[in-house]
């Protein structure tokens, strides 16, 4: 009896320590985010005081005159990320469906392995491939063809240099594909087998049962896409190598553009003046906030969808 009590007591202590310790870890993540935001705010104070909201809406980034406006850079970041996501998501879902539902296992294993391998390639390698393979192909074949067939659209006008928004979008698409498809495949595989069997037993075709599985996995696939979007927004090296690096707002995908992560990476080392440094840190702060907004948005979307599902 005494022994049991003792045991009970020491177990309680252990549980208590465990609980507090894990709580500390959890809280420290939260604190870290706040601290990061606060430090970036402190670092960018001079620039925030001088430019206010015009930092977000002014379109001239001029280190010589010390005038910093981030609009074209924010535009470049958002457009390149969203366009690449729009292309990557359907392709990835296709890959995931094939791997989880259609492919025989002797094919599924090696293909899944290759997809995961793609996710592990460093981005500078993608960038080099972009410079030496993708960009010449865009310049000599794809962009002239686009201009020829769809030149009446404002998206495909101007001189086809190869370097520019289109190259960045395509590189990002290739980089997002393995991330989104490998997570989506896992999500699809997690849907209980009984759902498929039930559908088939009720006389559903393969396609109809796959649709049901897809509906079950919707929130997971959405989460995978948001992870991909996070990667696209923060991607620096591969993008800066092909995007053309000029702060410019243009409807044409052939024109050069710039992203926030690239500007910071490019200009931080040689930023000599306090205002310049401060503006670069403010840019980081804006990137930080945009990332938080997008993640929050994704959470809400996932949450509302899963609620709808459980209600139905």
């Amino acid at each position, binding site marked *: 009896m005494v022994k049991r009590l003792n045991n009970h007591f020491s177990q309680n202590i252990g549980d208590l320590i465990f609980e507090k310790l894990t709580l500390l870890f959890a809280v420290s993540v939260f604190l870290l985010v706040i601290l990061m935001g606060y430090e970036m705010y402190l670092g960018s104070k001079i620039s925030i005081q001088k430019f206010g909201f015009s930092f977000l809406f002014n379109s001239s980034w001029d280190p010589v*005159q010390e005038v910093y406006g981030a609009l074209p850079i924010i535009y470049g970041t958002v457009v390149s990320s969203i366009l690449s996501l729009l292309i990557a998501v359907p392709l990835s879902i296709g890959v995931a469906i094939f791997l989880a539902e259609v492919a025989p296992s002797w094919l599924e294993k090696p293909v899944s392995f290759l997809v995961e391998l793609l996710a592990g390639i460093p981005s500078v390698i993608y960038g080099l491939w972009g410079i030496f393979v993708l960009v010449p192909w865009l310049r000599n074949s794809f962009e002239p063809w686009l201009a020829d067939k769809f030149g009446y659209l404002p998206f495909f006008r101007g001189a086809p240099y190869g370097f520019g928004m289109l190259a960045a979008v395509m590189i990002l698409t290739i980089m997002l594909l393995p991330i989104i498809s490998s997570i989506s495949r896992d999500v699809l595989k997690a849907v209980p087998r009984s759902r498929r069997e039930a559908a088939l037993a009720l006389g559903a075709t393969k396609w109809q049962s796959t649709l049901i599985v897809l509906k079950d996995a919707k929130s997971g696939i959405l989460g995978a896409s948001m992870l991909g979007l996070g990667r696209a927004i923060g991607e620096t090296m591969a993008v800066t190598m092909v995007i*053309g*690096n000029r702060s410019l707002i243009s409807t044409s995908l052939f024109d050069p553009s710039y992203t926030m992560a690239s500007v910071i990476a490019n*200009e931080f080392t*040689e930023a*000599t003046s306090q205002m310049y440094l401060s503006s670069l840190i403010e840019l980081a702060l804006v990137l930080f906030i945009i990332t938080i907004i997008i993640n929050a948005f994704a959470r809400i979307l996932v949450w509302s969808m899963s609620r709808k599902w459980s209600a139905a």
Partner: protein
Amino acid sequence: MNIFYRLSLLIPLFSLLTHAQVQLVGTGATFPAVIYSKWFDEYRNTTGIQINYQPIGSGGGIRQIIEGTVDFGASDGPMTDRQLSDAKSKQGTGILHIPTVMGAVVVCYHIPGLGKGLNLDSRALSDIYIGRITMWDDPYIKNLNPESNLPHRAVLVAHRSDGSGTTFIFTDYLSKISSEWASKIGRGTSVNWPVGLGGKGNDGVAGLVKQTEGSVGYVELAYAIKNNIPYADIKNQSGYFIEPTFSSVSAAAMAASVNMPSDLRVSITDPPGKGSYPISGFTWLLVYQNMKNETKAKALVNFLKWAMSRGQALAAGLYYVPLPASIIKLCNNKINLITANGKKIK
């Protein structure tokens, strides 16, 4: 003060902690990093004194010398008056600019059917980079190159996307020769380019130029020579088209040394002299005029003197342009001004 700033100041401390013996720590420009690491290596072999250099960029070099976290800084562009007075109020001593080697900027191009020897002048360059000249067979360029067969092809302008001393020298030249450039764009390590594509680093710009027909860009002389890229002869102040070579860059420094300001913070773009190549500049080491630690001061002075004599001989092998004798003399005068706690160093 923000955390990045503080963390960046810590970088040199780590290296200090790992070695107990006297060693010098410096940070700054990336352009001279190759020759500097060669120098520090050779110098350690002959004297045993360790010098630790981190090429984190000119901006970082200037910030850290102002904060006093390093023994010396390095920069491709001179410090501004405001930065100098900042340093004086924080460190209680002036900062000396010591030129170490020179770099030149060449204008490289990729025009189908045209090898070396395109002629360009200041107006052609500024008009190309402002975006006024858009075709290679523009009458103005044709007039400069009566013998070349220039194609009817669009000019694609390439520039650096990362902040760089190369960009500083190039835009400094354009600002000197074109008042329009000076008022609209100006000089700096990064500027707001009116046209063109940005490539990261010398290799990024060279890659753009190599790959794209009809392109023009600017890169370091050393980079262009090593990679065998065709580059243009530029018309200098005296009206001669000058090919960028070690001797024409050296000639520019010699011509500029006649009217050198005493603090050696000088741009030597667009210099006088028949044989001077017009787009070149110094890279500087930034040192405190009065150092607090006598052992360190002695080591630094000895190193600087060594760099001005033996060190210069190593420059050409690594494709840096050595300083001409007239500039070395001025540098040695500067080095002799360094003191430790107000006392002269023997």
